């Protein structure tokens, strides 16, 4: 395999990993605060469709990206009201969000189906971009690729080093204790849910504005669910989320390239590969029950009702 091909494969891995990384980074913060939002897929679709709509209407990619982020956050707040204020079941509410988002995005997207749009601009540095190997690996990506890595590092710092991050972890660990000490459990969780929604919106925008620049119904194809699995895979640790996202990106890309090498495998098997890989990885991680229990936020999925 020649070096150029390897580099070009790596570049495509980075692109494929980016939506997973964006969505998983957001959901990590949500889950660390003790909320399980299964609506990632729906929020991504909302981000994808609003990103396309805003880009086409304003002819400005930046407006598209911002709209996707805002739409994702706004959409997640529907879930927030349900589970945080009305204390509804988190699993059911998250599923409802995904189902609703699938329907709503399709309705919003009808006028835009198949309309081509300009790919997100890429970041090129003069001279540096032409360096062999490093050039194409470090430069020439769209802006959301850099945002995804930057946000992940920021979240890693936030959770482990900042005081607000400590408070957020504490809320996810024991909402009753956090409430007793005087923290605004519900307000913090609203923030975490909205952040998760914003990141999922960006993840959707990356799919519809950079990976495959047009709108198609249900175009996220389960990536939101893979992002959820990624967090379990990463045992709720930010840097492992990074590693996991690129691993899954690689699996996604593998299916495109294996056929190129003339390996006689049905394409359907390769299409199923990312999902099978997710199952296998989940099995490996979760079989170590003690580790999951130590790292998982203890309050995840539980509704908080302050003793009145």
């Amino acid at each position, binding site marked *: 395999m020649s070096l150029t091909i390897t580099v070009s494969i790596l570049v495509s891995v980075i692109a494929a990993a980016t939506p997973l990384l964006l969505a998983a980074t957001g959901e990590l913060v949500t889950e660390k605060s003790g909320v399980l939002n299964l609506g990632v897929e729906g929020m991504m679709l909302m981000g994808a469709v609003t990103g396309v709509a805003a880009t086409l209407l304003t002819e400005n990619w930046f407006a598209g990206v911002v709209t996707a982020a805002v739409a994702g956050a706004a959409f997640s707040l529907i879930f927030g009201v349900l589970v945080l204020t009305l204390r509804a079941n988190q699993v059911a509410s998250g599923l409802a969000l995904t189902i609703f988002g699938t329907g709503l995005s399709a309705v919003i997207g009808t006028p835009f189906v198949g309309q081509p749009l300009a790919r997100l601009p890429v970041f090129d540095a003069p001279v540096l971009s032409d360096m062999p190997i490093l050039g194409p690996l470090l430069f020439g990506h769209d802006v959301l690729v850099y945002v995804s890595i930057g946000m992940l590092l920021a979240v890693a710092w936030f959770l482990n080093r900042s005081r607000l991050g*400590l408070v957020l*972890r*504490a809320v996810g*660990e024991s909402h009753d204790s956090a409430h007793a*000490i*005087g923290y605004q459990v519900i307000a913090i969780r609203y923030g975490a849910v909205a952040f998760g929604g914003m990141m999922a919106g960006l993840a959707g925008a990356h799919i519809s504005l950079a990976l495959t620049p047009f709108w198609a119904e249900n175009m996220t194809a389960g990536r939101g669910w893979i992002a959820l699995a990624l967090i379990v895979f990463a045992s709720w640790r930010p840097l492992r989320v990074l590693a996991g996202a690129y691993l899954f990106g690689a699996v996604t890309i593998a299916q495109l390239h294996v056929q190129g090498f003339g390996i006689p495998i049905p394409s359907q098997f390769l299409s199923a590969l990312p999902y099978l890989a997710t199952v296998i990885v989940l099995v490996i991680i979760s079989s170590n029950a003690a580790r999951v229990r*130590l790292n998982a936020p203890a309050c995840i999925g539980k509704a908080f009702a302050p003793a009145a």
Partner: protein
Amino acid sequence: MGPAASRPRLELRGISKSFPGTKANDNVDFTVLPGEIHALLGENGAGKSTLVKIIYGVLRADAGDILWDSQPVEIQTPKAARALGIGMVFQHFSLFEALTVAENIELGMDDPGDRRTLHARISALAEQYNLPLEPGRHVHTLSVGEKQRIEIIRALLQDPKLLIMDEPTSVLTPQEAEALLGTLRRLADEGRSILYISHKLEEVIALCHRATILRGGKVVADCDPAKESPRSMAELMIGTRLTPPKRTAIEAAGPERLVIEHLSAEPPDQFGTALRNIGLTVRGGEIVGIAGVAGNGQNELMAFLSGEQRAPAAEMIRIGGTPAGLLGPNRRRDLSAAFVPEERIGHAAVPDMSLVENAVLTGHRTAGFVSRGFMLLRLAGQFAQRVCDGFKVRHPGIQHAAGSLSGGNLQKYVIGREIQQEPKLLVAMQPTWGVDSGAAAAIQQALIDLAGRGAAVLVISQDLDELLAISHRIAVLYSGRLSPPRPTDQFTIEEIGLLMAGHGAAGAADQEGRSAA
């Protein structure tokens, strides 16, 4: 020494607070002076916790005024309370198990400063008040006493003028409790006020300068504990005279109903306690008590006895002579054993289900409520009605959810459900935890009566007074090891306290364990 008469530090006037169905505080007045250790006494449900939550800003009063240093204040949040100089140590710790000691302390402070300085301040304070603690340890690795120290240091770092302690000694060994009282006296000598919530009356007499007694949400007395006796204060708390349960002497040793032999087991995860070579025999007609501070293996032992957790070998637990270590809960009930776990809601009973269905929960095999896979709900209903009648359970109707019963009534139902099936062995954990004293006395009497009818009864409890009152023999569980049981009247509280703290006979049990292995 008492506090100098001066302006009150805290004054409550006409505080009222209602919850659906109850008036938790009804026009409560009282004052705390600087340097005073002030006891707040009352039964479970008398309104003590509600009142302190109002003072600490966790709850807001429906009516009434709070004065701090003679100034009217509105304490809307715990943060506002801390800003005034109020610190609080909760009965149920507000700690985060997966975080470190220092992180826990930082979370409880409004202005923690940078982390390195904080570590140093924690260590300094720990030394000053004799509260040894390592800032870097994870909380889930600490004992209950150490966890309490985190709470105390967290409060002290704020330099409080008023420290609220909610039942602080209920989780400590007698010796640990004594050390804590010393620390509290020192804090009072520094001019800090302490609001001390307890139902341990000897302790209050030894420690406190004044006592306010609540009953049914109202202040019924404001007294000087030094001039009262435990009995007089208890009667003020309860409002009536209670006949304490009477333990009957064993006439003849019955057959061995429960034999635990060389029971050793690793915990399922790092939050649990390993059991080490536990041995105990309980005979028909006797009540054996297992004392110990929480977290020393009680939950694990209970799970192994009830069959929720299988023992490593069948012979480790014998029920009525049958090796039962590998049997599940059903097969153990077939051997005429019954169990009452500590947690009423969600463990012993399903709160969302009716009393009838909750009867099926443990009676689905032994009481014949199931025929060919279908539930006989009429039969179960009659049974539930008998339990409620026989054990004076106040309830809105047997078709109503278990969760609608008060704590004491639900506990009576849960215990009654097992006793009604006339088991030959009953294992009960914390049978009177958090219930009012009327219900507690009834439950204790029911256990004594059951033993009187020839059943073997094993009670695992942290309430030493209860064990001393009802048990014929007592053993102490510490760090997963059980001391050899001794007749209750041959034990002193000091000896039991030493065992609870891990001194004394534990070494002997250890040696035995090694020879067995």
